[in-house]
């Protein structure tokens, strides 16, 4: 007799086990998202868009209508859906390369227009899908395939502070937070608040999730968690950054 582990109702059982590498953070973020969808009872209304990056592996992850877009283009595809079908709950799921590099213009402008969509971005400090190149979020000194001698802040700058940037641009009504897979309960709370913000029609909502990429970091389980829990928070502060009715910090 096989025992099926507890999974969110909105997950599609037929496509499990999922396709991410063992120890990958994407699965945890999608677990938090699945539970948030369940608790808000919005499965029927969700339109899920995933980017090209390891997020693309979630194209058949949920029992929700889903669309795999282009690298960096999930925000505009999902915005297009929302403008055409305001009754849907539209989610754009992407990586840090997709959101902060190639798709940064879309994120900035969606925030500036206060699009009523929810963007969820997985920050794993690199381009996972393409084999571990430097991302906007790569930590100073961190070695990647395109920063083989370590990220040099003099020529390549510092890690992009995504939620802070979005919060600075977004208008009143937006919800912006940064969670971590090291605290899935809190992450779920943030994602739920973000989705609720869309349901309430307040404005743009954005959650970044600190996450692990053991494959490209070349880390074992212990080192992966150390990196997520100790290294990443030195540059990326976890917490709610902007909530409707409150002033941003």
């Amino acid at each position, binding site marked *: 007799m096989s025992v099926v582990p507890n999974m969110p109702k909105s997950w599609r059982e037929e496509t499990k086990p999922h396709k991410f590498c063992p120890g990958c953070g994407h699965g945890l973020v999608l677990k938090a998202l699945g539970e948030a969808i369940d608790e808000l009872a919005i499965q029927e209304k969700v339109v899920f868009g995933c980017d*090209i990056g390891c997020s*693309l592996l979630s194209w058949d992850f949920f029992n929700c209508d889903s669309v*795999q877009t*282009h*690298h*960096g283009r999930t925000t505009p595809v999902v915005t297009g859906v929302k403008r055409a079908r305001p009754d849907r709950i539209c989610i754009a799921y992407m990586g840090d*390369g997709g959101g902060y*590099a*190639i798709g*940064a213009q879309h994120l900035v402008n969606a925030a500036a227009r206060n699009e009523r969509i929810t963007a969820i971005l997985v920050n794993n400090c690199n*381009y996972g899908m*393409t*084999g571990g*190149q*430097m991302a*906007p979020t790569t930590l100073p000194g961190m070695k990647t*395939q*395109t*920063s*083989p*001698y370590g990220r040099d802040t003099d*020529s*390549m700058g510092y890690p992009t502070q995504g939620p802070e940037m979005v919060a600075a641009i977004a208008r009143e009504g937006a919800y912006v937070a940064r969670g971590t897979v090291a605290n899935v309960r809190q992450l779920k709370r943030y994602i739920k608040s973000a989705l609720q913000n869309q349901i309430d029609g307040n404005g743009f909502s954005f959650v970044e999730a600190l996450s692990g990429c053991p494959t490209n970091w070349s880390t074992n389980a212990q080192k992966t968690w150390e990196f997520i829990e100790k290294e990443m928070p030195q540059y990326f502060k976890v917490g709610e950054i902007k909530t409707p009715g409150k002033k941003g910090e």
Partner: protein
Amino acid sequence: MLEKPIGGEKRVFMTGNEVVAWAALAAEADIMYGYPITPQNEVMHYWTRLAPKYGRSFLQTEDEISAGFTTCGGVLSGKRAFTATAGPGNILMQESMTMAEMMRIPTVLVVQQRGGPSTATVIYSQQEVTMTCFGGNGEGLRIVYSTCSHQELYDYTIKAFNVAWKYRFPVFVLGDGYQAKMRESLKMYDPATKGIKMVETQPSLGLAGVPGVDREPSHLRNTYNTEEELCEVVTNLVKEYNKVVPEVVEYETFETEVAEIVLLGHGIVTRAAQAAVKTLREQGIKVGHFRPITIHPFAADELRAICKHAKKLIVIESAQGQFERIVKEAIYGESVPMESYFKPGQGVTGEEIVEYVKKGL
């Protein structure tokens, strides 16, 4: 700082992406601008490791739109600048490459074709032919080398810089995922030992002296006010391009002199076609093969000459007729029958060509 990346000549066994990085080093490329995409990534991976040792630079941009335009900026500054991409990245680079066409900016772009349309596969195809030859809102004023081996990746990457800087049209090296990822042996060399002199680069911006006092300022322009004005500019560009064509056009033939059936294929497909010719000839079947090396501009006259005595042409490609369109345009008016063997996004073997040819006898 190390001086020469390759002294004399050296036999090596490596992937095509590594070859491109070494060739760019040997060609004295100053800077690469790039953005990750499979199957091109390792060009950057090797370049980022090697470049600092030879005083060369690299910038990872935020996307391919930026990589293409930063390449234009580097070239305008008089640097031998290049970039490399594939698939969706190639789409995004078309914008900057039209600027290069219009303003005669000698950019070099290495394309490792992957499956399309859209994100499709990261593996292999010949589906970026139309885009690489004619992408953008222009007239296709560019030179595209379709390579078939690691040796050619090396040779033509070096040549790309020289042809670009000599004629000032954007030059593309059109490889594919197989060539990018496969390991193969080749001879790398210092271009000087082969008598290849790197064409000197010229800055268009940032020259010495006070503009307007010591020298004329550079006022580089790509926008025009009237239809007449633009028509004249483009007509002149086309004229200059056409002048260059006979000097750069390249092709190869295999037993086409007395061939009844001529296989047409470019890039890595030529290897399957060459193998098929060998097998079929051994069986007494009169088959030949024509292969453009510059897929654009195209050796139209040479193919026309073959059409005069051939009884049948077979166009073979890993795309749905992108190469065939070029062929049709080149031999418009010829009456030789033409068949096609298309496998969009999939490789072609010599065996299947042999089988196809024999079925049609």
